[in-house]
């Protein structure tokens, strides 16, 4: 196999891609999704954690308290989030409908040590962002009250949980897991999936447009041609994945070990590309090949995700600086699979090449 021939084919494919200019769509798509997700983050963070916007930080919500006296009233009055008024239930609910207050709490006079549980009724607005925020703030108050009641009734408990004292959370940590544990790994692996779909297009196109004979009549062998196409698709991966990392970082998401991430992504993507190439060589027709490949992809992804230390998990670990030696073991395993698949593709392509030149 001559490297020069492989390079020629790869170059030809690149020229094809760039002359069509549709690769621009892929770039546009990246920018589009990046814009979207960052806008979404800003919007949702402020929506679910209103205190993150400074002008809400000392905001007190008006709530009404109805019913009998209970320790809950004291908690509400002491809470920095609420301003409490004692109003009778019917009036309070009407005020809530008029959006003049943001919640109504009704407490019956159940004694704290009673056989039965204490039931509190909480009225909030449906279909309302503010209702969701008030729910979160109310939860803190209710949890305190629940702990009190449990302490009073502690004599009736058989087992008590191992005590762990957790400081009040500063909020806003919830997007960390979503970003690093889902968004980053999925986005950097997206180019690999796109490239694998691309190799199917490139190979089946030669069959369906019947341009194969022209290609094979040149000094380039069939296997060299396939490898050239694989190379073209593979080269795209680090560039696109790098663009993702760059866009994410530009959006204020700090990512550690970008080079190692690219290394893992590039190698794992080669695996996908080789699978795509094998499927395309087998079916020689785009509809069937893409169908089988995308179904197989779902199976493979699901299987891989269920394994500990899978490449996606490694990307998540690397991006938060938590990967150890195990990453090299995984890299080796992926590399060995790539070698095995590459070898079988070489054999397969050779066989097809022989048949082709024989005809």
């Amino acid at each position, binding site marked *: 196999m001559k490297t020069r021939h492989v390079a020629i084919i790869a170059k030809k494919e690149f020229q094809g891609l760039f002359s069509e200019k549709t690769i621009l769509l892929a770039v546009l798509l990246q920018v589009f999704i990046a814009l979207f997700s960052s806008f979404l983050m800003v919007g949702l963070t402020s929506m*679910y954690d209103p205190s993150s916007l400074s002008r809400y930080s000392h905001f007190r919500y008006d709530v009404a308290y109805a019913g009998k006296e209970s320790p809950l009233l004291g908690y509400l009055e002491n809470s920095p989030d609420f301003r409490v008024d004692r109003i009778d239930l019917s009036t309070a609910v*009407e005020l809530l409908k008029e959006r003049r207050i943001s919640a109504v709490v009704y407490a019956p006079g159940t004694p704290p040590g009673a056989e039965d549980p204490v039931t509190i*009724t909480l009225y909030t607005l*449906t279909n309302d962002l503010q209702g969701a925020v008030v729910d979160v703030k109310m939860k803190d108050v209710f949890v305190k009250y629940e702990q009190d009641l449990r302490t009073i009734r502690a004599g009736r*408990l058989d087992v008590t949980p191992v005590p762990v004292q957790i400081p009040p959370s500063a909020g806003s940590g919830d997007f960390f897991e979503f970003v690093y544990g889902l968004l980053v790994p999925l986005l950097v692996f997206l180019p690999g999936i796109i490239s694998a779909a691309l190799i*199917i297009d490139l190979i089946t196109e030669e069959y369906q447009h019947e341009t194969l004979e022209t290609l094979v009549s040149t000094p380039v062998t069939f296997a060299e041609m396939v490898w050239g196409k694989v190379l073209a698709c593979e080269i795209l991966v680090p560039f696109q994945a790098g663009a993702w990392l760059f866009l994410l970082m530009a959006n204020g998401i700090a990512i550690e070990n970008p080079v190692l991430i690219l290394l893992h992504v590039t190698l794992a993507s080669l695996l996908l590309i080789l699978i795509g190439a094998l499927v395309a060589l087998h079916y020689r027709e785009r509809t069937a090949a*893409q169908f089988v490949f995308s179904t197989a992809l779902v199976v493979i992804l699901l299987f891989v995700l269920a394994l500990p230390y899978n490449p996606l998990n490694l990307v998540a*670990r690397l991006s938060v600086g938590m990967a150890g030696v195990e990453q090299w073991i995984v890299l080796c395993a992926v590399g060995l699979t790539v070698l095995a698949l590459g070898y079988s593709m070489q054999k397969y392509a050779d066989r097809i090449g022989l048949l082709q030149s024989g005809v």
Partner: protein
Amino acid sequence: MSAGRDIVTIARWEVKKSFSVMSRNVLPVAIVLFVLLVIVTGFAAQNGLHIQDGMYRIGIDDPQVAALFSSDARFTVYEAGDATLADNRGAYDLVIVKGVVYASTTEKGRSALNTLERDYTQYRNSVYTGENDLFAAYPLWIDTQSVESELNFTATQNGQYVQVAPGQGPPVPQGTVKNVPTPSPTLGVTQDELRQELVTSSSQNTQVSRYTDVLSSHESVMGTFVTPDQLSPPLPFDSIILVFVFIFPLYFTSQFFMMSIMNERIERKGEVLLSLPVKTSSIILGKMLPYFLGMLAICAGITLYIRASPLVLLPLIPIIIFFLANALIIGMLARSFKELSFISIFFSTVATSYLFFPSIFANVHVISLISPLTLIVLTIQGTAWTLADYGYSTVLFWLTGAILFYIAARNFNEERLFSEKKFLPRIREFLAGILPQQHPYAALFLLAACSIPFVFMSQMMGLVVFFNLPMPYSLVLLLVVAALIEEMAKAAGIYTLFVRDTAFFSWKHLVCACAATAIGFLVGEKLLLFATLAQITESIFGSVLFLSLGVLWMPLLLHLACILIVACSLKVWGKNGLLPGLAAATVLHCCYNLYFILGWIR
């Protein structure tokens, strides 16, 4: 009647053809893959998904406490003496010494703390669920009652609060007070029933059930009662499950249609079909019918499976039509397979975002109604929606779908299908295909009017994108983007005609053509607005998008002036004049809108 028979015949051919291609090699593999999929799904469900493993480092001095958190794969737990831990605090995200948690002050530390808190709550609940006296373990129950209030577009934006002036004493209601019955002080559930419920709800894997709950309308015995721990707002990304369940299969199936169209074009295979003595619309409808029915069947199957109301299908039909229309156009436009892949991936992402992102705000904000997916969310929840809501969220899908079909039918001929031109010239040719030579003005008028649904759709997209930005920026960006989109839509017809027949554009013809476009645009805009979009137009965002609704002659002048700028620029500088002309027209359009909005706000 014969058209109907033609359609059925062609539909039968299509089914036969695709099955003969598929069944030979693919069917056995597909069956194997399907079996594998079932096995792997079971494996994954048992093993869990390991994507977030080992994200946090946690140091604990007590093995009993360490045992609580080592089962969560997100934590890498280190056990050490408290002195060692205190020395290396920086190396851990969390440290638990003598039963007290210390978190590092980074974003990661906070996130780890949140995760730890959820884990601990889960553990504590599992202990309490085993208690004999459940009412001692769960002494407090919250009855959550929701009260309807008039939705107010501006009030709920960004969780804003309608502030009452901090006066003295409690506020007094303005309306009449209706008597609210005093809630019963008891739970109305026995300890045994409660235990049963707690066992089932804690056995569910919360990571999975969170999503599956979106699909099922599960009724708990507890009714509206929750413990304080369960009192949490709906998570914003939950409706994404609907995208996976309903939209992905549709997208997947429409790929086959796209490919079938593309296959007709390869090596002129479609010539046979074109030579048939049937109308092109029959060919297209016939080829589409099997896929349409297939997609409908898939949706019906899913609906049955999740036991949702069949009403779910109603908002899905326009989505199916929209997908098929786009698949048809993309299949006719793409020059090569890789172009087909790129365009279809691009289209599907944009369409999915358009469907998904507004639906995040279902139950929260009226903006969510621009996506039919919101209607599905509402149906599954059991919330009723009106015919007006349906029209509001689906009309753009119906209209764009219909117009794309028309364009495709007019261009479904040898000349267009087998040409090897570049992408943008091809789009221009497609437009030229529906602009008859004899009546250029009428054609421009109609094209401008028909472009309105597309303009609105792109502007709605802009609205969704910019909605999350803080107020002044979102308005300004929306202003510019909306103006640019409108100018591009208006310029499309003129540009097409200009390239086809430059000589036609004498100054007199140029003015007439611009006038036809401007009037067409205005008429289309008014028609669609009056029909449907009243809800959005009432808001301040609407006033940016649809400002031109007010007086008639003002917007007409604006449209005319803008399109004249583009046309003159084309006439003077030729094809290269398009971009500068568009830019100038956009600036003018923005100035006009700004002037009115500023005046309007003041």
